[in-house]
């Protein structure tokens, strides 16, 4: 029986309740910790294989090094006044009730050690300023709770000092890696990118076979030879997309959407087997060196293929790294066509074509869907799109509204800048953290339930591979169908009008414009 079907046989009591507010429960999540990376995984990334003998000394040394190197980190450690504005802003706190998941308390696990070792008051009067030594218990707390932070930065939005909590979590993970205590999930994946070029470990032969298979599907569906080109030298555009787009559902439907857009406007584009991953888990572990090495693959691929533009697919933290750091990590990209943004997001690309009227939609193809949109944290709070403030919120919505008749936003305090994390970001999308993933998804599920009740919403679109996987896994626990999470470009794929495509519906309105006001009421749409 499918997860989806189970819903028919189960009573409401069998689901997690998105409206439940857990009681305050100290240390209830203390046992939640991901698998520790094996020595060979650690050593591959240049870290000690296991916890070193003098780990306390080394950890403090590393903390000092980071505070010396990154002014931001030092300011964030020094400036918190424990005002409490962030306490109820974290989805993991809201979903678990564990006070150590209040952002201020989670950060204090590290900050108290910093105080003890790097501040005058902490050195001489530790009891007065909440300064503590780094003990084994504290290290265990670090490992547990810094893997209950998805670095989504929602708390930072509400911090009057602008403390970037994600940076604290990243630094904590970097310190732990440096003493030999790394997380299996992230570090194994980074190793795979260094070896094979993507998180999945998808080799060029398998990637080629997958893309050919999908080209067949596209032809069956449309009657057109829509291509998914691989390693084509001299193409104008190199698409860098998360490898989940080649593997998982509903990600693949997004990939097919990109291909249809490129096809319709006759773009010359290619995927690279060398840089077949947009995601960059180096960010999650706070490792500049790993982040750089992953980014340099993209630079090399672009140069080897001789492309003029780089476009990123739907991936949240990839876009953060690309938008904010790519030039610093792997630039300058002076060999690309400077008339286009370097790099560009696929949503910017598609949106631009919609604005120019170069692609059009038959929105009625999405009439079976009443849609809402989950702003992914890294796109919402760590990047921008287009040339106007807030473009990262408006451009994805403009695409969805162009492709779909029924769009409804969730509550204002749960979207855009204040969006909730999906619960699986920041390196937490692993089965060994399923409990905290389900709990962390609860605030988003609550908002979704609300909009489902108010507007009959049936589906939620996302712009990030992690969000899509996380939701398809945890939504059934909250009583939603696993297929109710969709890619933005899946909605595009459903509705885009392709010249010369075969039609399975002779009534299809071919003259539909993208302008909603000018849009004739589609058959079957309610008033």
């Amino acid at each position, binding site marked *: 029986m*499918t997860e*989806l079907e189970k819903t028919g046989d189960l009573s409401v009591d069998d689901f997690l309740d998105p409206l439940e507010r857990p009681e305050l429960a100290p240390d209830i999540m203390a046992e939640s910790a991901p698998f520790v990376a094996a020595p060979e995984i650690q050593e591959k990334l240049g870290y000690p294989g296991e916890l070193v003998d003098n780990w306390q000394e080394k950890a403090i040394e590393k903390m000092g090094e980071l505070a010396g190197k990154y002014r931001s980190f030092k300011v964030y450690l020094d400036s918190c006044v424990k005002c409490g504005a962030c306490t109820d802003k974290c989805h993991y706190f809201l979903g678990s009730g564990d006070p150590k998941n209040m952002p201020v308390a989670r950060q204090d696990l590290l900050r108290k050690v910093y105080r003890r070792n790097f501040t005058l008051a902490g050195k001489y009067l530790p009891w007065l300023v909440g300064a503590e030594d780094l003990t084994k218990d504290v290290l265990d707390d670090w490992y547990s709770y810094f893997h209950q932070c998805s670095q989504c930065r929602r708390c930072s939005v509400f911090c009057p000092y602008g403390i970037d909590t994600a940076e604290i979590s990243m630094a904590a993970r970097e310190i732990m890696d440096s003493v030999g205590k790394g997380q299996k999930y992230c570090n194994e994946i980074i190793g795979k990118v260094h070896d094979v070029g993507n*998180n999945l470990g*998808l080799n060029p032969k*398998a990637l080629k076979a997958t893309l050919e298979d999908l080209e067949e599907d596209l032809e069956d569906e449309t009657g057109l030879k829509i291509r998914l080109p691989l390693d084509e030298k001299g193409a104008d555009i190199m698409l860098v997309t998360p490898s989940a787009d080649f*593997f*998982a559902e509903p990600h693949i439907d997004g990939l097919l959407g990109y291909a249809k857009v490129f096809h319709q406007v006759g773009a010359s584009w290619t995927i690279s087997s060398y840089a077949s991953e947009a995601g960059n888990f180096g960010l999650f572990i706070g490792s500049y060196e790993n982040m750089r090495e992953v980014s340099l693959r993209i630079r090399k691929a672009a140069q080897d293929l001789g492309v003029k533009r780089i476009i990123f697919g739907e991936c949240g933290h990839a876009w953060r790294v690309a938008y904010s750091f790519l030039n610093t990590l792997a630039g300058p990209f002076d060999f690309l066509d400077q008339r286009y943004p370097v790099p560009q997001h696929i949503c910017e690309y598609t949106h631009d074509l919609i604005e120019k009227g170069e692609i059009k939609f038959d929105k009625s193809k999405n009439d079976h869907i009443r849609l809402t949109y989950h702003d992914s944290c890294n796109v919402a709070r760590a990047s921008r799109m287009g040339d106007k403030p807030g473009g990262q919120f408006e451009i994805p919505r403009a695409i969805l509204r162009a492709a779909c008749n029924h769009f409804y936003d969730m509550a204002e305090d749960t979207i855009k800048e204040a969006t909730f994390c999906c619960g699986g970001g920041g390196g937490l999308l692993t089965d060994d953290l399923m409990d905290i993933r389900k709990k962390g998804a609860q605030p988003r599920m609550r908002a979704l339930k609300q909009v489902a009740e108010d507007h009959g919403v049936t589906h939620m679109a996302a712009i990030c591979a992690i969000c899509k996987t996380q939701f398809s896994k945890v939504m059934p626990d909250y009583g939603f169908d696993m297929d109710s999470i969709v890619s933005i470009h899946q909605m595009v794929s459903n509705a885009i009008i392709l010249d010369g495509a075969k039609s399975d519906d002779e009534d299809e309105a071919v003259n539909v414009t993208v302008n909603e006001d000018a849009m004739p009421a589609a058959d079957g749409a309610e008033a």
Partner: protein
Amino acid sequence: MAYDFNGATIEADEEGYLVDLSVWNPDLAVLIAEDEKIVMNDEHWEVVNFLREYYDEYQIAPAIRVLVKAMKKKFGGDKGSNKYLYELFPYGPAKQACKIAGLPKPTGCV
């Protein structure tokens, strides 16, 4: 963890994926499946065997969509759907079926 297989200890990772893929055999698959609360029948074997063939060729598990399509081609329409695969492998065909087939766990944002 490890599997106790006919008196021998077969090493597996924390989640039960085989460490040495070459030790896999059909009887071991039945044992891994039992651990997953799955009783192997012909339908399960069709999927597991296909995964192993694909892995032999490509050194990775197929995308779900590729698997669905191949199943449809080989065994007919009613076996070519995501829903059917989830019926057989409730934790998800990619991970659970790979574990039973003795393949590595698919990693990344999947």
